[in-house]
């Protein structure tokens, strides 16, 4: 199954949901968490995480806290108030969409159509 195609439109929503649940996360941690929570079924291209993350930051949905780890800087992403509102709205929209798709592709529906 082409998960990467299906995940494209929902990556930002997934990131917002993870940040809402975990409080703060860094990029690598987000990528690992998505893999872990989906039992490895969702294998995002790790590089594709950053365009979505930086867009969320530019739109004011998340903010980055920079922490020094020796010589490198780790950027922990936090949800803003605007991001929390967006997350709720996006999740509701996604659930409704999934419910609609689910009812359309359910075996019962397929048999009657």
């Amino acid at each position, binding site marked *: 199954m082409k998960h990467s195609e299906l995940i494209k439109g929902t990556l930002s929503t997934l990131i917002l949901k993870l940040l809402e649940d975990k409080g703060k996360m*860094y990029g*690598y941690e987000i990528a690992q968490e998505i893999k872990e929570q989906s039992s490895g079924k969702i294998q995002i*291209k790790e*590089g594709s995480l*950053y*365009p979505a*993350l*930086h867009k969320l930051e530019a739109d004011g949905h998340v903010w980055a806290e920079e922490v020094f780890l*020796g010589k490198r800087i780790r950027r922990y992403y936090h949800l803003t108030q605007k991001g929390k509102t967006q997350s709720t709205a996006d999740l509701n929209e996604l659930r409704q969409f999934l419910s609609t798709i689910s009812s359309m592709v359910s075996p019962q529906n397929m048999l009657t159509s």
Partner: protein
Amino acid sequence: MTTLSEIQFRELENRLQKAGLLMPGLYHDLLDHMYCLTTKYMDEEGKSFEEALDKAQKNLAPDGFSAIEHDVSFFLNFHIQLRMKRILYLGAFLAAFGQTAYVLFRTLHWPGANYFLFGGIFSLLFLLLPGLLFQFKQNVDQLSSAKKIRFGSGVAGVVLFALGSAFKVFYLPGGNVQILLGTSLLALVFFPLYFWQVYKEASANHSRVA
């Protein structure tokens, strides 16, 4: 968890610095991500530092770190790019319309031909050209040398041709030379490259599908 030595960390930094990333936030994100992936492969798969680093880079940035920055830039500037494209297409339409109407009016000896010529040149210089240059600047890293030459010859050819036409209308010296240079660039460089590249892309698409 493995900690990278000073030399190993510098090697990691060098890989990213070679890409010449311009966004500091993204640079720190990718450096940290590369660090985590490299140490993970060293710990879990027993790979040497070099092997782990290569695998991390292949996993995180198969098309290069600058491709990720390009994607980030595209996401962040999407609305600006959309606006620039509208200006570009409007400029292209007005420039083409102006030039075509000029040729028609002039051939049939109708009055007002020069207005179309100047309208077309104005659209070319102040709408189409800035739009094209903006697009070129945005995508310059992704373009092959042949495409850069095609862009340069196309823009120079059209501008020289348009300015040469205007010079001739005002009987200014140098009009013929500009038209000659412009048409030569278009006919000998731009069009052959354009049609060759279109043919190559069509062949590549055909091989991928067939």
